[in-house]
């Protein structure tokens, strides 16, 4: 296997909850609670989970767009959190992000050329004369006509805007890209265009993706390995084939069975979970999933299950662990 490009160890991000006149901290939202994984060169790690499970916060904390609370993020052997602001700024082109909302992620006052080319100039990768050619090249690569260079974002549809966002990230020759729900806001017929584009670009440039999504079928298509998050923690992580064929954690099983399949003749046994996701400000004791788990045991209410390898690089955090 290829070399490890990113390694995340025990990453935690707690947002303080303040209240009262003096804004005293009365608790914490544990958005990311002890997440560890590694990402290799040219690999896509899918991160799935429901809203509020901390998958987006994980992505942003890795890029240090939000400061961590605890833990370590090593990118190409460098600890992202030990860099000075200026060193971090210089490292930025190597790790990029593609956002969910194609509307709010592009500056409405800048032309496409400026949006894509700006950082090239800022990082000295191009000068005022060469930037246009470079931007046109990247736009074409992302399936946009180079005539678009002088246009403003509001003239584009959602799918095209998402392509602009991808072009912006791509222009800097990154090695690692966080894709934060890049297709969730798009129409079905446009989603597959963007997914295909991301796959093609990966084959061409050997990017590593951290692909964050709540849509299991998209994650399954694009990822090599998949991690499942619940209330800020990874509950299961394994090779794509392994996790979809042999899910161990009851939450993963429920999640998989809940995905509607576009085939009316297929009748499946479905696990319908009871209740709602608990608030991350006040997660249940023991295993966080025990309040909704159909297989819960007494131990689950008390002891947090260890997140461990059960063989085959299949990590899971459950007291049942496959037995």
């Amino acid at each position: 296997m290829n070399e490890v490009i990113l390694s995340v160890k025990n990453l935690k991000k707690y947002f303080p909850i303040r209240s009262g006149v003096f804004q005293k901290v009365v608790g914490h939202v544990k958005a990311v609670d002890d997440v560890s994984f590694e990402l290799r060169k040219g690999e896509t790690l899918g991160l799935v989970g429901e809203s509020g499970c901390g998958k987006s916060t994980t992505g942003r904390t890795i890029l240090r767009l939000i400061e961590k609370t605890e833990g370590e993020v090593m990118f190409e052997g460098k600890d992202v959190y030990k860099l000075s602001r200026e060193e971090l700024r210089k490292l930025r082109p190597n790790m990029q992000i593609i956002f969910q909302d194609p509307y709010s992620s592009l500056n409405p006052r800048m032309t496409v050329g400026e949006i894509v080319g700006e950082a090239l100039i800022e990082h000295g990768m191009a000068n005022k004369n060469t930037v246009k050619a470079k931007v046109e090249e990247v736009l074409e690569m992302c399936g946009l006509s180079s005539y678009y260079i002088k246009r403003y974002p509001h003239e584009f549809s959602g799918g095209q805007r998402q392509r602009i966002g991808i072009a912006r990230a791509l222009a800097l020759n990154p090695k690692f890209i966080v894709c934060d729900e890049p297709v969730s806001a798009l129409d079905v017929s446009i989603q597959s265009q963007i997914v295909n584009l991301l796959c093609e670009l990966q084959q061409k440039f050997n990017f590593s993706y951290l692909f964050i999504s709540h849509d299991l079928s998209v994650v399954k298509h694009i990822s090599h390995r998949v991690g499942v998050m619940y209330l800020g923690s990874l509950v299961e992580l394994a090779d794509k084939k392994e996790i979809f064929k042999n899910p161990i954690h009851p939450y993963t099983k429920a999640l998989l069975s809940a995905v509607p399949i576009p085939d009316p003749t297929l009748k499946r046994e479905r696990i319908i979970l009871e209740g709602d996701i608990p608030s991350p400000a006040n997660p249940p004791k023991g295993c966080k999933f025990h309040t909704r788990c159909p297989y819960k045991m007494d131990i689950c209410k008390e002891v947090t299950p260890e997140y461990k390898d059960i063989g085959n690089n299949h990590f899971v955090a459950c007291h049942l662990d496959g037995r």
Partner: protein
Amino acid sequence: MDELLIIKNLKTYFYTDEGVVKAVDDVSLRINRGQTLCIVGESGCGKSITAMSILRLIPDPPGKIEGGEIIFEGKDLLKLSDDEVREIRGNKISMIFQEPMTSLNPVFTIGNQIIEAIMLHQKLDKKEATKKSVEALKLVGIPRAEEIINAYPHELSGGMRQRAMIAMAMVCNPTLLIADEPTTALDVTIQAQILDLMRKLKEETKTSIMLITHDLGVVAEMAEYVTVMYAGKVVEEADVIELFKNPKHPYTLGLLESKPQIHIDKEKLYSIPGQVPNPFNLPKGCYFFPRCERAMEICKEVMPTLKEVGNGHKVACHLYGGDNNE
């Protein structure tokens, strides 16, 4: 068959500064009693506008229902007075929306809102109405219904709010429930709960459901009959099994092919080229022609009409059935 709702040649247009948007352009549909009809399409295809036209909820201006008939239980809704429509709305036909937070009034408790709906349409006093609301909340699987009835919408989670919305919609025993993307804003596990609930309620109450969605997975699970819309037109309709087994229109085919599926591995996804059409600048012939891989000369010029191709399967495409000049 026992028809509950028949829409004939409905036209709903929006008059904006940039031009006329034919949001719903000559759409015909029918829903039988106890049937679930799914309308599928992408954003801007007119599926929500069709639903809002039924309840006459189109904001005027800029919108206007320009023609057609909406016959519900033998009466043309478009010919009724505003008062008569209000009598039907929430009573015989009720609607649930994508975002339950915006369709519940934040300053009233859940109970208040359901009780109000009951008292508006049924001759019950407050006490009976309260009792009925609790029952309705229990019916949709809300635990501690007696407490929840006094809760404000923001105190509930998204799934609970959607349940409350369904309770409110079902409390007057409507004969038609219109659900506009009821699970799009919800997580998968919660979506599974809500879909399951809707299926159960339908079996118990024999309510017809008009389910609007963009998710083909949801369609396969819920629908009996499916209508596919594109740019304000119906392009294909069929029985759900028939449609998924034997999709005809290149757009339907494309949609089915382009969705990654959890139970099938694909090397590369198919994708429909191009963008969702700009409603101000629709092509002359078939609206799907610029994105269609099987387009022919005729498609550029002539708009195809919806034609039966056997098995109750209708499709609007020149590939099926030669001459379309009617």
